[in-house]
């Protein structure tokens, strides 16, 4: 079986528009959360959201290539540009090799709603314009990036709710490990507009701490009152070690393990058993001992039951081990379809730079989080392996383990 390494990363999120900006935000513990006042005009319970501006891609892509790009597709394009650049993969390489793409995405609400608004008003479907269909489909990110970058390998979208980005990396890892693909673009993208989260707001899932946006996302804190929706995009270039070596690429890390499970239980209420099995599978797959994993990037979104059950699952699997555990969602909010990929990028940046970002707003633990080793200040710490959890609606769970590459 092939070893699977990471040779490029790209990130566009509410805490930075590229790796360097994000690294600085992580180190400082900067929050990317703010308010979108328009949501209140439409009756939303919460106006809290990750704040990020849309990238200016007009100078980067011609009209035909921009027409089909949805909001999250634009984020994904910019993140993928950064990742390809770091990996040293150019257009000529992509034309001569079969590079694939698996990206996590599970909605594209804004273009759908715009189109329906036009059809209702004008009674003329042509007036939605040519780009609407390509922006509206769940596969909008992979179909557009495949064409823009002229990719010739496997291309489809992974829709696994808030584990989409993580599963995309896990599936890419499987394909490269088995030899079916040599190089894959893997990632996750999430639109950040009020249309995409209206029904989620309706479930009373979002924090109402609007008077203190930076304190609203407080995973594992006893007084958490819900998540803060957010988004952007994150890309990783995965390839076989043989491919990276042949190209002379700089190897940033190695995908060591992937685990998954489903709860087979409730649409929105998570349990302990599913995440526990996902964790155990990933650790088994990695061949690492639990004590080799010195940092865990938790899924913890700042909901009462989700954080509690994840903490219980972690405690069960950790036994006596006490790795640092944080949720970067305390800074970014919940990046949903993107989160599984972005949190690997965040954790990679920490591992490369020898620190663990502070877990914001952890002021009072609950009975389970009190037993976890959660740093509230930046920790200067070299570590060789981390684990990243992602769980989604429907009880889909994904766990990735990434380690430093050693020959």
């Amino acid at each position, binding site marked *: 079986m092939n070893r699977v390494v990471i040779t490029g990363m790209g990130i566009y999120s509410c805490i930075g528009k590229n790796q360097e900006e994000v690294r600085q935000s992580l180190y400082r513990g900067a929050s990317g959360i703010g308010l979108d006042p328009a949501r209140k005009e439409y009756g939303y319970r919460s106006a809290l959201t990750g704040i990020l501006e849309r990238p200016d891609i007009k100078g980067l892509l011609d009209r035909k290539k921009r027409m089909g790009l949805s909001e999250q597709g634009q984020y994904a394009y910019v993140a993928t540009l950064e990742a390809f650049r770091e990996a040293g993969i150019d257009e000529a390489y992509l034309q001569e090799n079969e590079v694939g793409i698996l990206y996590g995405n599970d909605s594209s609400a804004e273009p759908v709603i715009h189109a329906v608004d036009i059809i209702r008003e004008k009674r003329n479907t042509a007036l939605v314009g*040519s780009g609407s269909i390509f922006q509206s489909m769940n596969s909008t990110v992979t179909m557009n990036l495949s064409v823009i970058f002229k990719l010739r390998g496997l291309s489809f979208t992974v829709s696994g709710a808030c584990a989409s980005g993580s599963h995309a990396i896990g599936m890419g890892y499987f394909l490269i490990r088995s030899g079916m693909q040599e190089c894959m673009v893997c990632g996750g993208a999430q639109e950040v507009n009020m249309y995409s989260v209206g029904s989620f707001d309706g479930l009373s899932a979002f924090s109402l701490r609007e008077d203190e946006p930076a304190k609203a996302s407080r995973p594992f804190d006893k007084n958490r009152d819900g998540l803060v929706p957010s988004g952007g995009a994150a890309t990783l270039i995965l390839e076989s070690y043989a491919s990276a070596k042949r190209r002379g690429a700089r190897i940033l890390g190695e995908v060591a393990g992937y685990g998954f499970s489903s709860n087979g239980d409730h649409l929105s209420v998570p349990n302990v058993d599913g995440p526990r099995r996902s964790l155990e599978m990933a650790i088994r797959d990695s061949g690492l001992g639990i004590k080799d994993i010195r940092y865990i990037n938790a899924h913890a979104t700042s909901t009462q039951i989700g954080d509690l059950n994840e903490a219980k699952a972690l405690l069960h699997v950790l036994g006596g081990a006490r790795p640092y555990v944080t949720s970067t969602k305390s800074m970014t909010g919940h990046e949903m379809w993107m989160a599984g990929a972005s949190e690997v990028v965040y954790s990679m940046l920490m591992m490369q730079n020898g620190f663990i970002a502070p877990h914001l707003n952890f002021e009072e633990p609950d009975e389970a989080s009190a037993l976890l080793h959660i740093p509230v200040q930046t920790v200067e710490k070299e570590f060789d392996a981390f684990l990243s959890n992602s769980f989604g609606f429907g009880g889909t769970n994904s766990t990735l383990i990434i380690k430093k590459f050693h020959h």
Partner: protein
Amino acid sequence: MANTELIEKINRKLSEEFETDIELIRPDAPLMQTLELDSLDLVDMVVLVEQHFGLTLKAQDFASIKTFQDFYDFIDSHVNDAN
């Protein structure tokens, strides 16, 4: 015959929408090739004509148009019909 004001407006809107140098838009120049239009772009032409000229057309309505002059005349006649 389309008047100068209408022609200038058409040229400006086509140049903006299809990101084409306005200097390339001349009465006898071929419309599809100059604007690099494909079948998808004709749908956006329908949107452009509706938004800026108030005309409700179908992509097929553009089938007989070869040059920009044809396009000016086409829009002019429909604008006049609409009036």
